[in-house]
């Protein structure tokens, strides 16, 4: 981790989750602006591969902004400006040579509200592999769809009705369908922006179980408002406040013995 970048905030020892995993995404001195608004201040963080990293913090703290910077979703906002570097497997993602469509295939995203396409369950998952030309033929495409649905723990519930519309599923099933859709293009990173906030506790537990099952294959970054969820699913937790990355630590440590007072106040429910 870059020592300089922590000058204004707390400098923790390097978390075990970062030390013991390959470094997938490395952000250095990142500043993000929306027009005049300075949304993220001098952020540096290393996101480990084959692990779950949670970004927590009150609304407007910059955690979603940072998440969306990782797969350049912020490109769609004209007033958004970003400085500093974010590398993905050592390559800068803001490099001119980077194809954004290709980047987003490698860095998939799951949103707060399940947003299946108004198509069949099969087509929802098949769409990505088809447009990216990942399937050799129809049998191969069927294999990819089946595997993705299995990995998203949805297969058993939908295998008899693959031709039914995806929008006809329950909220939790729709969200798992969206995860299956993200997995189908064989990404390396999965970004999740509050993936459970619209779901009931049982559907939430299913998604958390799913995250746990797939984390050994992917680099997962999750933004969540539920601290308990961050504590349950993640290996590494980063706390953001007012656009500043206040503290990064192993989840087990951060929730029992946070080092910064702001982190302590936030996770114990002392300010929101």
């Amino acid at each position, binding site marked *: 981790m870059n020592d300089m970048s922590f000058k204004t905030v707390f400098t923790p020892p390097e978390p075990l989750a970062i030390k013991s995993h390959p470094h997938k995404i490395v952000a250095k001195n990142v500043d993000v602006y929306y027009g005049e608004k300075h949304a993220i201040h001098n952020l540096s963080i290393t996101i480990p591969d084959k692990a779950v990293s949670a970004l927590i913090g009150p609304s407007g703290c910059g955690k979603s902004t940072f998440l969306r910077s990782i797969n350049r979703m912020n490109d769609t906002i004209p007033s958004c400006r970003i400085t500093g570097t974010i590398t993905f497997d050592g390559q800068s993602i803001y490099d001119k040579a980077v194809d954004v469509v290709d980047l987003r295939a490698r860095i998939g995203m799951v949103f707060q509200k399940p947003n299946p396409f108004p198509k069949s369950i099969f087509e929802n998952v098949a769409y990505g592999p088809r447009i990216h030309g990942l399937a050799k033929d129809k049998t191969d495409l069927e294999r990819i769809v089946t595997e993705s649905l299995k990995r998203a723990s949805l297969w058993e519930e939908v295998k008899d009705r693959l031709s039914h519309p995806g929008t006809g599923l329950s909220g939790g099933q729709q969200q798992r369908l969206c995860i299956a859709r993200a997995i189908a293009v064989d990404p390396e990173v999965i970004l999740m922006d509050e993936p459970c906030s619209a779901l009931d506790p049982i559907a939430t537990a299913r998604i958390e179980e799913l995250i746990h099952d797939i984390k050994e294959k992917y680099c997962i970054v999750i933004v969540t408002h539920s*601290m308990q969820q961050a504590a349950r699913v993640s290996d590494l937790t980063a706390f953001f406040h007012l656009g500043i990355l206040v503290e990064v630590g192993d989840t087990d440590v951060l*929730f029992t*013995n946070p080092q910064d007072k702001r982190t*302590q106040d936030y996770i*114990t429910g002392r*300010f929101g």
Partner: protein
Amino acid sequence: MSDHIVKAYDNDLSSLKSMLSEMGGKAEEQLALSIDALVRRDTKLADSVILADEVLDEMETAIEEKAVLIIAKRQPMAKDLRNVMVAVRIAADMERIGDLAKNIAKRAHAIDSAIPRRLATGLERMGQLSQNQLKLVLDAFAADDSKRAMDVWRHDDDIDALYNSIFRELLTYMMEDPRMISACTHLLFAAKNIERIGDHATNIAENIYYLVNGEMLKEQRPKKDKTSTTPFAFADKA
């Protein structure tokens, strides 16, 4: 620390704390009365101490229930979580202190001969030391003060040292007059109980350290209790 957004959460935690300080006060009182009952061989007082131990048991249960309820309802994090965990552990230590005091009181019935003045003074002195340790550690808990808790932790060796000398003295009495063996054995157990109470006070101190600093104390406590390795000298005498 600043207040929670949810006021009821603050109330839950502060009532847990006041339950603990009430229990601490009761444990201190039980300890003082039990030693008094023993050295004066006051069986009436001893009986009241034995009876009152039930109150401490009930307090421990109430604190445990409160802690479980807070965990279930509030899902405490960080220092709040440590607070709840530590409350349960401290309550358990105080419940043990109560049991030990009760055991000391019971021995007031068993001792059939007058206790030599010197021994009584020694036991009273030991009792005062452990009472003082208990009082200081409870004050440190009330004030969230890890430094004061560590002072208590370091001073336990005073009690150990006194226990050593009482142990030796009791051995001498027993060797000199076998009729004293029964009474002295009871006193030996009483002294050992007081020494154990001192150890519980240091447990509480360690918990305060954890509560304030977020990590367990790694240092080893200085120990002066040598009685486990002291040989009996009967053979030499014969």
